[in-house]
């Protein structure tokens, strides 16, 4: 039985990754799951300098999911390399670093700094709905996306994954723009912009007013977008959005994803990633699937 998958020449022991921002750099969840069992750890977004993020409240629960407006708080690339990457280097799992920035130059600086590090891939977050400058602007306009992708690809030493925003009219167009500009893979979906109002306090549940929605409630939208993207491009797709168990993971794979990531459901159950790894194997046994790559895009 084979669970290995390959993206841009990088081989993952299984298709299960962590969704950026929901797993720190793996340290906190290493108390619960064996990081060696995961296909990859995808880290929280890191910028060239430390970012303080947004004021609190930053998270709010909604039906079947949550909103967050963390605002990409991060310690900056220096500390990240010293502390987080050296922590991760102790594990036998692939490392994908999620990169954020306010300008193209910010992104490029991080990408260059990571060039000589033990990092397997870079995931470029152009789709965070919670920071005003840059970020999502790149992810909602196909020309801007093409441009930043191309510039990053020129500089990057590792293969790059462009992380797409679902807050667009056509995910297929965005996927095509990323592919045309040389992206090695795409990941989707980032969170869907949402809002919650406390009707008794007459105020927004989040200080930032809007936040990114994640969790099982968004899964059908995510599966549809993975399917549409898979039919639009030939580069591999990392699918995410509401994955809670192995069945959800298989659903994304059947929609066309090569790998999948677990996000908000880590908060519901810190063991989720490992359970998804085990659950995929059980599914394969039960349904007589020899190679996980057989069922990709099978519908």
């Amino acid at each position, binding site marked *: 039985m084979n669970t290995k998958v390959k993206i841009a020449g990088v081989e993952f022991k299984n298709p299960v990754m962590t969704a950026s921002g929901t797993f*720190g750099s793996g340290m*906190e969840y290493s108390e619960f799951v064996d990081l060696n069992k995961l296909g990859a750890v995808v880290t929280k977004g890191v910028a060239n300098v430390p970012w303080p*993020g947004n004021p*609190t409240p930053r998270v709010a629960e909604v039906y*079947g*999911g*949550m909103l*967050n407006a963390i605002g990409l708080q991060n310690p900056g690339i220096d500390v990240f390399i010293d502390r987080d990457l050296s922590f991760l280097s102790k594990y036998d799992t692939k490392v994908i670093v999620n990169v954020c920035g306010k300008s193209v130059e910010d992104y490029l600086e991080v990408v260059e700094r990571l060039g000589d590090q033990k990092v397997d891939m870079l995931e470029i977050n152009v789709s965070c709905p919670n920071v005003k400058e840059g970020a999502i602007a790149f992810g909602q306009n196909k020309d801007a996306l093409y441009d930043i992708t191309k510039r990053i690809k020129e500089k990057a030493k590792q293969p790059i994954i462009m992380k797409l925003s679902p807050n667009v009219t056509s995910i297929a167009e965005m996927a095509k723009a990323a592919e045309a500009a040389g992206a090695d893979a795409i990941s989707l979906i980032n969170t869907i912009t949402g809002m919650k109002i406390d009707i008794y306090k007459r105020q927004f549940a989040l200080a930032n007013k809007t936040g990114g929605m994640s969790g099982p409630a968004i899964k059908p939208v995510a599966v549809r977008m993975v399917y549409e993207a898979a039919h639009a491009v030939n580069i591999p797709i990392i699918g995410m959005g509401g994955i809670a168990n192995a069945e959800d993971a298989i659903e994304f794979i059947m929609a066309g994803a090569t790998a999948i990531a677990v996000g908000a459901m880590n908060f519901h159950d810190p063991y989720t990633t490992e359970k998804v790894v085990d659950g995929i194997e059980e599914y394969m046994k039960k349904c007589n699937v020899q190679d996980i790559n057989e069922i990709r895009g099978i519908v």
Partner: protein
Amino acid sequence: MANKMKKEAKVLSCGLLAEGIYELWLETPFAKDVVPGQFVGVYPVNKATLLPRPISVCEVDTERSAIRLVYRVVGSGTAEFSLYQPDDFIMILGPLGNGFPLDKAKGKNVVVMGGGIGVPPLLETAKRLTDAKVSAVMGYRNSETFLSDEFEKYSDMYIATEDGSVGTKGNVIDAIKANDIKCDVIFACGPMPMLRAIKAYAGEIGAKAYLSLEERMACGVGACLGCITKTKEIDDHSRVHNARICTDGPVFDADDLEM
């Protein structure tokens, strides 16, 4: 420190303490490791609500390997918890956060101060402060007080109520002044205005204050960066002026906070 785990806990007993205030005694393997001031994440069964509810540990019974939670019903999760019966199982994540630094109170005059639903975590705190002179000052809205007689077992107990129906009329600071309570160290939990007042008061009288904070949480384990509080200095983990309440707190040295 004890390993965190998510595990079903058995309900040993449950009850109503005051209007809208309930308790649950839960059997859990990590009971013995709990430091007062730590909390657990309690998961509702309601499948539309996925996040754990942070609830402080109010008391520990190592004999039965049990923890006591005392909570106010404010929404769907706590409403659900109030329906649990003995022998039911409830999913919890813990132990979370850092507790009160009990050693800082050794041999000193310590005042534990709670306001409203901030009262519970101070009970186990008072109980463990065996090598200090402990006063307890608890603030309630009205005569619907809870846990107050239990504090009497471990401390000199003073009450403040907003409507003056029991104890000093006013807040916990009013009660501390009215009763001229000696105070070198303060351990406190309660609403933000009360904690701000305590920080200011501690400053005035030259006491140390350790405050337990609240914020909306998602993960409870330090990964999501949802629950930060502003700090005076650059925090070692975040490298910005933010500390995570769930893992760096919930108890902080008042001097370190920007509040």
